[in-house]
């Protein structure tokens, strides 16, 4: 039975067509993937489906009945529930309170009864959570379960998940998939938005590929491969195996000894990390978000003070150096984890963002004046070199797409041939094409002889890019593995904080350095 049918959905923003007569059919109990690059129209389509946008033309049919969704509330009344990438939960409240939030308008709230209701529901769907637990204390994976329970509680039969795996560990992803399969088996229809191809192939029944607001094709999952999907999505062939070239590591350039760093709440974030990084080498740092990666990158860049230990660059102890000193006297490129919040000033132009770290230095500043013509010329050159897609150098970076924003950061951080590059989640939120671009640039830098610290929570990304892989867990390096011998399983286990030796019998044997 066709559960959900979209017929010629078109949504325009001004003259731009975000969704161009999209038609789609989803069967009951089907897990249907919506695949597309950033800006392909996935999010717009989902917002139309969840009632946040009204389409300019086209019709949504639910079980054969045409419906008009005027708001998110209206959508949920019709049984369409959206699970956002960023959870919409109140961390201070309990699970049950979060689930019933906004559904009760009486004067009395029988919380005990609600808790029972939630408990029986979570048993029914085999979504184990403690209804009385405080949401803020739960792991990210558990919070996601709460989100799912929330829409189920409201009677959703169609579940839309927007990049649900972005924040999960490999194990949590597995358990999410089990849950989704169960829900589908119970007759729920699931729309799964992602750009991670492996996951789609693993989970979904059908996939619809969007490109530039249009449906490229809808295919059963059996008939596609990763390569086919990538090609449909990008519109050209994509190489998955990066040609890394032969590693040619030279002398040690960065030497971190027994480092201890505290986080913003003055709790220990890094506890005794020691490693060396050589020129022409990429050291990948894998780990679940929040295990000290941020603090490590910040400490090396000088943004966070070191409690104990030593950081040496080219034999010079820079532990106590200020950020400005490091920027002016050392060649360190730092691609920060959040380009919009940390790396860029969104309302300033590309040209002004490119001089963020060098605005007081020649040639950009001479005789106490900013040299506009030199700044602009520099920007024009950088835009060309890094293939930033923008009308001109005076466009504010807020008008650029994520990939182009990241290119602006690359242009700034890679200029002047840094000896050390700290890349913190450099491909987060980028589509396939842009990811490929960023990774290629970093590999070029490595070939040139730069030492690169590549920090990412995406395990596969670390695996492809690195020469050696350090796994971080609770502020410590569990191990540093040689990338040639490391497997997803070994690293995955280390990411959970287990020593490999303990689980060797359950995991195929691997070598570690």
């Amino acid at each position, binding site marked *: 039975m066709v559960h959900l049918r979209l017929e010629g959905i078109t949504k325009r923003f*001004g003259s731009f067509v975000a969704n161009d007569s999209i038609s789609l059919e989803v069967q009951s109990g089907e897990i249907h993937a919506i695949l597309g690059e950033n800006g392909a129209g996935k999010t717009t389509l989902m917002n139309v489906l969840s009632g946040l946008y009204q389409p300019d033309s086209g019709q949504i049919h639910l079980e054969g009945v045409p419906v008009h969704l005027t708001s998110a509330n209206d959508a949920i009344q019709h049984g369409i529930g959206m699970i956002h990438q960023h959870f919409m939960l109140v961390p201070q409240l309990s699970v049950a309170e979060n689930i019933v939030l906004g559904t009760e308008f009486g004067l009395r709230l029988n919380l005990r009864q609600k808790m029972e209701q939630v408990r029986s529901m979570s048993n029914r769907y085999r979504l184990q959570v403690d209804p009385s637990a405080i949401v803020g204390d739960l792991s990210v994976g558990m919070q996601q379960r709460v989100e799912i329970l929330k829409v189920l509680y409201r009677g959703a039969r169609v579940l839309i998940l927007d990049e649900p795996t972005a924040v999960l560990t490999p194990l949590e992803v597995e358990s999410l998939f089990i849950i989704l399969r169960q829900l589908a088996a119970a007759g729920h229809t699931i729309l799964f938005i992602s750009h991670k191809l492996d996951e789609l192939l693993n989970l979904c029944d059908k996939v619809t590929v969007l490109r530039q607001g249009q449906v490229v094709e809808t295919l059963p999952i059996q008939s596609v491969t990763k390569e086919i999907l990538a090609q449909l999505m990008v519109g050209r062939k994509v190489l998955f195996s990066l040609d890394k070239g032969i590693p040619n590591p030279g002398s040690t350039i960065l030497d971190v000894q027994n480092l201890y760093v505290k986080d913003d709440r003055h709790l220990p974030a890094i506890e005794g990390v020691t490693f060396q990084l050589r020129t022409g080498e990429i050291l990948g740092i894998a780990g679940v978000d929040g295990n000290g990666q941020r603090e490590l990158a910040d400490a090396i860049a000088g943004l966070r003070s070191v409690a104990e230990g030593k950081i040496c660059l080219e034999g010079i102890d820079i532990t106590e150096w200020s950020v400005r000193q490091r920027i*002016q006297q050392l060649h360190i490129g730092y691609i920060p984890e959040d380009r919009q919040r940390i*790396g860029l000033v969104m309302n300033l132009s590309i040209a002004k963002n490119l001089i963020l770290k060098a*605005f007081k230095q020649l040639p950009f500043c001479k005789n106490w004046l*900013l040299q506009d013509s030199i700044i602009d010329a520099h920007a024009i050159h950088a835009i060309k070199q890094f293939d930033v*897609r923008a*009308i001109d150098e005076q466009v504010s970076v807020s008008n650029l797409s994520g990939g*182009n924003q990241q290119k602006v950061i690359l242009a700034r951080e890679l200029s002047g041939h840094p000896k050390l590059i700290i890349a913190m989640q450099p491909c987060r939120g980028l589509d396939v094409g842009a990811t490929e671009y960023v990774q290629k640039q970093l590999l070029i830098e490595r070939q040139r002889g730069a030492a690169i610290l590549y920090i990412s929570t995406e395990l596969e990304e670390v695996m492809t890019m690195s020469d050696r892989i350090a796994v971080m867990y609770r502020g410590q390096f569990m191990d540093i593995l040689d990338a040639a011998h490391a497997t997803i399983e070994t690293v995955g286990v280390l990411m959970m904080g287990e020593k490999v030796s303990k689980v060797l019998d359950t995991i195929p044997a691997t070598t570690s350095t």
Partner: protein
Amino acid sequence: MKTNQVSNAFLPFLAPMLAIVAALIVGAFLIALTGVNPLHAYTILFRESLANYYGIGNTLTKMAPLLLTASGVLVGLRAGQLNIGGEGQIHMGGLGAALVGLYVHGLPMWIHIPLALIGGFLLGAIWGGIAGYLKAFRGVNEVITTLLLNYIALNIISYLVQRPMIEPGAASPFTPIISDSAKLPILMPGGLAHAGIFIGLIATMVLGWLFRRSPLGYQIEVVGQNPTAARYAGMSVSRTIMFVMALAGGLAGLAGAGEVMGLKHRLFETISPGYGYEAVAIALLSRGSFTGVIFTSLFFGALRSGANVLQREAGIPFTIVYAIQGLTVLFIAISLAVESNLLHRVSLRMNRLKPAGVKL
């Protein structure tokens, strides 16, 4: 894209204009309620503020402190600081100028005037700097500290002019008249307008230039728009904030100095009839533009100077003019909301156009 750039350049002026027109139209109804022909009232308002000798003089007199203080508030806004302590800073600046004007003797004018201005600037800068220090190094919200520092400043002045600095035998609490060598020259013979307006215009233009061309302006801009990025780029956010707040206070201090040296020639409790608060409105309405501050200050100054005559000649209560002022603020706030909505759509379109038109 070209039309976008044109409209982007044009919008900042269009919206306040429309808001002012709307405020005058609604104001017309209020005037009509008092039984006066609105057209007649507006004619007086215009003539007595911008179209005759004394009117212009009056307007410039009111505009000078507004311009300086609002420029200070705007500098703060650029760094992300909302300084509502203009009133206190004006008074402290007045005190600084009065101290130099009263107790330093025997200097030629060309030394005494700058010295008194520096005195005003310094005390204002200290007053703004206190709030800046508390914000930058102690994390205390600047809105609260600047507001509270207003009361401290006013009470200090109140004490000083009642006790140690009072003119012997004075009828009310005020200081003696400052030395002639510390008085600002009068611009228009027979009128009130003094050289303070030049100080204001010069300061505003220097600031505009500072933000356009200098690395310091760039740094303030970055700190204001994204302190995290500023820190990441090695800028000292706390020192920038402290500096900006001191500069803002100094500019308001100059306004106070101008009042003492150009207009009142002595210090007393209320040398500022709320310029400090009005400046906040002016700065907010000028939306980041120093040119905008000049025109908005002129408008507010004109309203103030016209209001007196309006009451005298047409019998329209003073408060009606204040209502028009309030309406202007209200309408500009509305136009800002409408416009940001509009700009948001434009930028959304521009943003989406690129990745769609030329694929990555």
